[in-house]
């Protein structure tokens, strides 16, 4: 789905918006299990905001843990060589 499409048509149809929102709904872990598309647009938007916030928080937490782990890692350990081999 290309965003260029919105520039070509004179007007965004409701169908396109519904299709897009249902695609978004598939990505959200909260709403994915509902088989129908009964989730309203505002609910989907709300869940999207919550999900993005939780992802940001996870990135923060994981960065903290990574910084702790990196400071304690020994350069000659097997993990370090695995990580180094990933770069090649």
């Amino acid at each position: 789905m290309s965003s260029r499409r919105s520039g070509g048509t004179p007007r965004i149809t409701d169908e396109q918006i519904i299709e897009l929102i249902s695609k978004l709904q598939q990505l959200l872990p909260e709403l994915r299990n509902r088989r129908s598309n009964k989730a309203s647009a505002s609910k989907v938007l709300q869940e999207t905001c919550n999900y993005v916030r939780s992802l940001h928080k996870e990135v923060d937490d994981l960065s903290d843990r990574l910084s702790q782990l990196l400071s304690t890692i020994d350069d000659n350990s097997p993990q370090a060589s695995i990580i180094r081999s990933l770069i090649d």
Partner: protein
Amino acid sequence: MSPSQQPTEKNPTNLKNQFARRFVRALNSLHNPKKSAHDNQMHRRSRRIKIAAYNAMASVVGSRRTWSRAVLWKIRNRSRTQGLFRNNRKRVDHQIVTNYHHRHHVKLSIKRRNPNPKREVYFDPSRYSGQEAKLRKLVPGAENMDSWCLVDEATDYINCLAAQVEVMKTLVDLYTAT
């Protein structure tokens, strides 16, 4: 949607791999100059790792998406004022600036050719209040988009963020394995 337009979206593993390579490279360059491990440095190092993660993911997506351009732009401007990432600045500069200006120019001309009076003349209250406004603040670069583009951009952003989190989790697991 042709495969040539958005290859990484068709292949999530590919996206994760590309992100992992760039991120691990950045981690290595952050980790190598070994300074004495003060506790204050932990906080700064964590912040650098976070920036490196967002930078790596946005670099993989490149200039294809507004959010990735906005992220790279923000990081570049921040690094310019704070003097971080001196080594990467030149490389990021040339590619991002040319792509950003080209894309920005193209997007503007498309808007002028096909004006949509319904969307642009009338004040749309949902844009400035409610859930949509909150989403605009969360997705980088999405402040002035119309609703359709906002949802489209948010979809891609969530995809890439989720992939980023998965790779980072895998790395943490790898490092904590005894």
